[in-house]
């Protein structure tokens, strides 16, 4: 099968993540203002800007090297829950990616599952807590199911992105149980979670660059 993901494609994914976060930074800040301190977009933007700032991004020639750079840079410059959780997400993907230069569809799905497990381990979030995991978890499930059903990677990523968007939209009706938003309890009902919204962008970027 030709459903392979090269390091260059992963670099394109990371580049698209950075672009989407930059475009949506103000909107993410405003969502965060409903329940937190209005800086989720700015913090992620600072992280991805640092990720892109090195001149040799396209010389990181394995998924492991690339994803390790993304994860450790985010851990080093973002701070807060976002830095720890997104940093752990990419670092776990790096550790899981092995020494090979090319991934297949199942390999990418395995990376995403490992990243999701990293978020659960670090933040002990569960589906329904109104966090970034609420868009990631359904995306992982949708990707796995679509690939198991014989879909191409491109089609499976379309399903994953749709599931992430639905997960994000589902957080509107939830009261936050984790993170700073949890201090407001029921006052967070009616707004999408900022983290679930940014994670849906990360999955959307995967759809447009890896499929």
């Amino acid at each position, binding site marked *: 099968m030709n459903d392979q993901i090269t390091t260059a494609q992963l670099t394109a994914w990371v580049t698209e993540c950075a672009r989407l976060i930059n475009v949506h930074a103000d909107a993410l800040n405003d969502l965060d203002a409903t329940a937190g301190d209005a800086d989720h977009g700015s913090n992620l933007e600072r992280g991805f800007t640092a990720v892109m700032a090195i001149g040799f991004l396209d010389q990181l020639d394995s998924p492991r090297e690339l994803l390790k750079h993304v994860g450790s840079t985010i*851990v080093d410059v973002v701070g807060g*829950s976002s830095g*720890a959780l997104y940093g752990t997400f990419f670092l776990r993907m790096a550790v899981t990616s092995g020494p090979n230069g090319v991934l297949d569809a199942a390999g990418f799905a395995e990376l995403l599952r490992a990243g999701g497990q990293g978020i659960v381990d670090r933040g002990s979030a569960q589906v329904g807590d109104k966090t970034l995991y609420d868009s990631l978890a359904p995306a992982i499930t949708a990707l796995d199911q679509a690939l198991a059903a014989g879909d191409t990677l491109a089609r499976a990523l379309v399903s994953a992105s749709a599931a992430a968007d639905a997960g994000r939209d589902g957080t509107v009706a939830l009261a936050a149980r984790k993170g700073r938003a949890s201090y*407001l309890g029921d006052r967070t009902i009616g707004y999408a979670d900022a983290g679930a919204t940014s994670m849906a962008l990360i999955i959307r970027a995967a759809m447009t660059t890896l499929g």
Partner: protein
Amino acid sequence: MKKFMNDPADAVTDYLVGLAAAHPTTVTFDAERRIVVRTTRARAGKVGLVAGGGSGCEPLHTGFVGHGMLDAACPGEIFTSPVPKQIVAATLAADSGAGVLHVIKNFSGEVMNFGMATELLAFEGIAIDSVLVTDDVSIPQMPGTAGRRGLGATVLVEKIAGAAAERGDDLASVTAIARRVTDRARTFGVGLSSCTPPLRGKPIYDLPDGEIEFGIGISGEPGRERVAMRDAHQIADAMVSEVVTDLQPSPGAQLLVLVNGMGATPLSELYLLYGECDRLLRARGLEPVRSLVGNFVTSLDQAGAALTILELDDDLTVLWDAPVRTPSITWGAEA
């Protein structure tokens, strides 16, 4: 937005430069590692104290570095916890051979980043313990949630545990004293306005005239509930009632009472509030014997105040009274 600042992205760094310039014999800003350390290292064999959190809450924690309190502080971006690298650097700077206590306010980001730093520090051979500050009574305690925030009690933990470390207590004893403070301290905060982070350039939320936020934290986010404005007597009554109901002090308990400003409330209003709280506590048969009034744990330019009460015992009182010399808390004479 009108603020004394240059590039908003440099606001935290520019503050740290100014802090170190104003108190050169007490604190030094290590710009490369982004930590604030004591200018004169603590004596060998003293337990080190490290704390860190989002900036915007000054003087917490950077203003509490010095003799009798913290050995190093790591400031994050505004309202964003520091990164593991800073925490590792602060811990290494604070270690003088007797181990290091991390004072961690219970915010998800702070807990996670201190956790990651502790994993990295496992390779350094430093004994590390931590105390989690969770004094905010406005948050219901429910399993599976982030739990209560660490607020004003953080200052009391840093002062009292710092004094124990300075006295020569070992890591286990300093940690136990720090936990005794967190066990016996509670806080409730009231916001009269939102605040304006430099990079945002506008208030985090709109709080109309005539309305106030009950149950605020220290990051400018809305509080537990929005209620109608009322006079200071009624606000103090609510604060005292929230704190005392949760703390359940023993009859006739001796208290340390902190009336903490959020950054934009004048001292006269804080003392007015202190007077109300003092009277209400005495009416309940409790005895405030130590007080602290001023801006110690803030949210930038937010107007508001928080009441923190610590039930004292003899040792905690001795440690509170012990000499301290930091940029923002200084009393007594060093031995």
